[in-house]
């Protein structure tokens, strides 16, 4: 999609003073909405496809695709300055580290939690 483009009207309105002159066109905004609703429809349809254990990762991939569409075309992250992109990238990298380390912990536990940990037996037995 070649959505981001500087329009003459935006430049004129901005008077060349502000940096927010690069903007997503109205057509790109509408196309983004259609794509978002289509992806939401896909998520909903897959709910009834009984994907079992694959349902969650597939839904998360679709959600991530929707988040990217919102960030690029609605939030205009790509036309922001490098400082802004750095701030957001730092947040996303830290989230990645958080989720990766938690996943590394819970997915590699060898022993399941005890159903009756020591010391929890009923006292009045016998």
């Amino acid at each position, binding site marked *: 999609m070649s959505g981001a483009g500087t*329009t003459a*009207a*935006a430049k*004129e*309105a*901005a008077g060349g*003073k*502000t*940096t*927010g*002159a690069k*903007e*997503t*066109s*109205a057509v790109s*905004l*509408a196309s*983004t*909405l259609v794509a*978002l*609703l289509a992806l*939401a429809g896909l*998520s*909903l349809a*897959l*709910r009834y496809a*009984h*994907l*079992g*254990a694959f*349902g*969650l990762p597939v*839904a*998360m991939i*679709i*959600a991530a695709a*929707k*988040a990217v569409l*919102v*960030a690029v*075309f*609605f*939030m*205009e992250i790509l036309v*922001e*300055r490098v*400082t*802004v992109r750095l*701030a*957001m990238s*730092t*947040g*996303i990298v*830290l*989230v990645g580290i*958080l*989720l990766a380390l*938690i996943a590394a912990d*819970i*997915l590699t536990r060898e022993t399941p939690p005890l159903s009756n940990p020591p010391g929890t037996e009923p006292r009045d037995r016998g």
Partner: protein
Amino acid sequence: MSARAATHFEDLERQEQAARLGMWVFLASEILFFAGLFALYFAYRNEHPRGFDLGIARNTIAWGSVNTAVLLVSSYTVALAVHELRRGKRAAAAWLVGATVALGACFLAVKTGEYLEHFHEGIYPAGAGAFFAENDEPGIKMFFTLYFCMTGLHAIHVIVGMGVLATLLVRVLRGSIVPAASYPLAIGAVYWHLVDVIWIFLWPLFYLTPGGVR
């Protein structure tokens, strides 16, 4: 009305850049804030898949889906408002911001209805309520505690976003936000988009993805 930079900024461009960077740093901290809750969700879901399955089955897919559509459309209307204001169409921008606030109110109305439905069923936060006496599957209390916590915090963000946009609407109508310096509306819109993005992830986790545990 012309736009002027505050005295401590050299020019309007630097003032805009400072404001934009400030908002994005705030949004990055918001993402980290919610990421902790998402991590908690995944960890407990991994431990109690059946309890989470039962919890997801108790939520009404239709209401969650309606709210998803409402927030996606509201993101579009506020993005279009920024677009129109940059082109000098103040009236159109004001209508679109107003529509966004109204859509936020629709979202909250549906969410309130859902909460009331849960309360009626005896489902309250922290595992309180008659529902849990009859349904003692491990993990189901945690599911609904996370549900109320995450959707409740999200709803607070929706309310704050509506307040921010309503304030910006007044400023657009009064002419204190002008096309030559439309960035306050653009920055408010970016916050609203983040609220949308968070819901994009909450919707499948709480409504759409039973794990198919037998």
